């Protein structure tokens, strides 16, 4: 008995050094080992917002993960992969419930999600306590991967960039590149937009710019004239509104009709970096700027991905984080491949701690959002933020924009 344990230990330590052994007995692991029987599926879970007003964010990421799954023919070492979904509803309570459900399911090997940072806040403790690890494709709240985030976040990584990068990049773009010294911001009462515009405002002020007004609209507001009128009253050179497709479309479409905003520079962020947004905003989107992950670095892989997306979903991507979900799934898959121990009868053992460590150890991973390496605090995303300008080409229906205007 003792001998076997020792042997297993040896296997784990061997694995930690990257060796791969086949046909060995079950390893042991401080967080436990998942056993996948010869006829069992490998169970990967996706959690995120799949209902309510933000459903497109989660659906888009889910489809990205599905494409990654299809790229592996739906199989891991000959076992079918089950990709289950749990709705986090973009709320803290939804995230908590979804996480509790997944934490209780001992067949799950790894997770992709959540969509909204609020879901992660509600659910991450249950996931980490269960020894699971999740990779979020679209959480951007800086606090989630801050170095002092605490042990509850041990099982949390993300391929999305932190908004600390994005807000800073936009501030630099506006102040240094455009040379504008007054700016206004609008957020929609979502935690994402509120935090991002605040990062921008702080960085912009630090650079020497002036924030003339910070406004707020309801998440479901359609008539933006009142808020735009207020903004126009403060007379900013730049209007930054890092919100989502629907409200962003309303603001872009209506801004040019408000006296005083005819020539104001409009800037949005990754929440609006979709063809859906350009369609929703219409001709008035031409000339505006959108910050987003720098797609030009990995254009080639992305084009092929977009074709698969079109075939699967029947439309262009409906939100911004499909590619991040694709990468998140693949990072998880690669880590699984590294740590999985296969017995002769086809049984697979997944040591949980080793898996988590393997994900954290991801280095120079060739993703479609960039060359990804995961930091000790869980940031796997390439923090390369670019600013794109929407031109007549995109308004005419082409996507994505060809090259960023900055950097």
């Amino acid at each position, binding site marked *: 008995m003792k001998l076997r344990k020792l042997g297993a230990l040896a296997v784990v330590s061997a694995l930690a050094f990257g060796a791969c052994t086949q046909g060995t007995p079950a390893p042991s692991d401080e967080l436990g080992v998942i056993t996948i029987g010869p006829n069992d599926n490998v169970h990967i879970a996706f959690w995120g917002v799949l209902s309510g007003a933000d459903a497109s964010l989660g659906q888009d990421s889910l489809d990205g993960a599905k494409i990654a799954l299809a790229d592996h023919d739906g199989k891991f070492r000959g076992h079918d992969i089950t990709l289950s979904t749990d709705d986090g509803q973009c709320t803290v309570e939804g995230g908590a419930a979804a996480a509790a459900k997944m934490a209780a399911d001992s067949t799950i090997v790894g997770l992709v999600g959540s969509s909204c940072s609020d879901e992660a806040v509600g659910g991450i403790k249950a996931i980490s306590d269960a020894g699971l690890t999740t990779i979020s494709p679209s959480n951007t709240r800086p606090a989630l991967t801050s170095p002092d985030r605490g042990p509850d976040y041990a099982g949390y990584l993300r391929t999305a960039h932190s908004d600390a990068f994005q807000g800073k990049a936009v501030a630099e773009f506006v102040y240094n590149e455009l040379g504008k010294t007054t700016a206004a911001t609008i957020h929609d009462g979502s935690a994402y937009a509120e935090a991002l515009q605040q990062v921008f405002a702080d960085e912009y002020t630090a650079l020497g710019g002036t924030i003339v007004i910070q406004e707020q609209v309801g998440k479901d507001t359609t008539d933006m004239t009142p808020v735009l009128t*207020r903004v126009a009253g403060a007379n900013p050179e730049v209007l930054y509104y890092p919100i989502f497709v629907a409200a962003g479309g*309303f603001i872009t*479409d209506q801004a040019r009709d408000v006296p005083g905003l005819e020539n104001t520079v409009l800037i949005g962020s990754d929440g609006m970096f979709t063809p859906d947004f350009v369609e*929703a*905003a219409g001709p008035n989107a031409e000339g505006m700027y959108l910050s987003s992950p720098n797609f030009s670095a990995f254009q080639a892989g992305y084009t092929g991905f977009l074709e698969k997306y079109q075939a699967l979903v029947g439309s262009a991507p409906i939100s911004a984080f499909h590619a991040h979900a694709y990468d998140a799934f693949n990072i998880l898959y690669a880590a699984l491949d590294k740590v999985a121990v296969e017995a002769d009868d086809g049984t697979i053992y997944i040591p949980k701690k080793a898996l988590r460590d393997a994900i954290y150890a991801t280095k120079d991973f060739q993703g479609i959002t960039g060359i990804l390496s995961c930091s000790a605090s869980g940031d796997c995303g390439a923090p390369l933020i670019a600013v794109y300008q929407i031109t007549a080409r995109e308004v005419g229906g082409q996507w994505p924009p060809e090259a960023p205007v900055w950097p």
Partner: protein
Amino acid sequence: MQVRLADRVTDLAIATFLWAFRISVVLIVVVGSFLTLSSGKYGLETWTGLVITGLTTGSVYALVALGYTMVYGILRMINFAHGDIFMIGGFAGYFAGLALSRLGFLNANAIASLISIMIMMVVAGVFALVVALLVERIAYRPLRNAPRLIPLISAFGASYFLEYSVKGWAGPGVYAFPDVAVLDQLVPIDFVRIKWLDVLVVIAALVMMAGLYFFVMRTKVGTAIRAVSEDKATAALMGIDVDRAIVTTFAVGAAMAGAAGVLFGLMFRQINYFSGFEPGLKAFTAAVLGGIGNIPGAMLGGLFLGQVEAVGPQLFLDGFGVPGLAGLAKAVGFTMLVLILVFRPSGLLGERISGTRA
């Protein structure tokens, strides 16, 4: 029965509180408006701009509110799914518009655009009508004699069902209405900046409301509807087909909501499966504001709510230096609602479908 002293004291305290509440809200409104206006930060152009957007959104609210109010008038039932009927109309109109745009007819010239919009509205109205009648048949008719909370819960169910059916059908993304170039141009008048779209929305809404008013007040079917809403039993005894009157009410309300869905789409460009919820809630509020069950009341309520939301936050709160006040528009709207109900517990015009007080 003798009234105890303690009761009297409590009553007095309550009455005092009520007056303090009313006075303080009115005071906030008056002082805030005064401060805002006297600061002179916003010129006349700003205010006219806000009034116009209030007018157009208010018109859409009013059109949707009519459906709520008519159904309430005849069945005393809050048709919570009405906002979703509006959304479904918007989708039908979108597909019609898409087809017309593909044919090149939508933007061929001004007349073609106008005809196209009418076609879109008719398609939307008809589609919304069919869906509304199905909902009525399946979810409401079996409950016609049930206590009034029962149909309300059924209506919640219908609302969920419609929203998530559309989500399954069309996905969660937004659908952008095709551009109608003509509507984006400004009306060539000097003193106010207004687009043809605004004119179209207001006129279309007025025409539909006038038509409805004529229909309810002057036609035989309209008379039947009014009779049924007054007293079902007596109406039936007079030989009125109660069932038909009710179905007609649903149909007319839904058709107007569907057409309003197209106007909404033209104004704001985009719709998705959830975009009926907010306007539905607002329209319901508008109907209550005007006096639920009262047709002119719904129109007035819609226009009033549109103005309160567009102009209100700016006018009442800017003077106090409130941050992020555009986000409070809905809160201001609901506060005005409560205020009006406190002063007039049956809404601005009281509740009678015919508009005449009994």
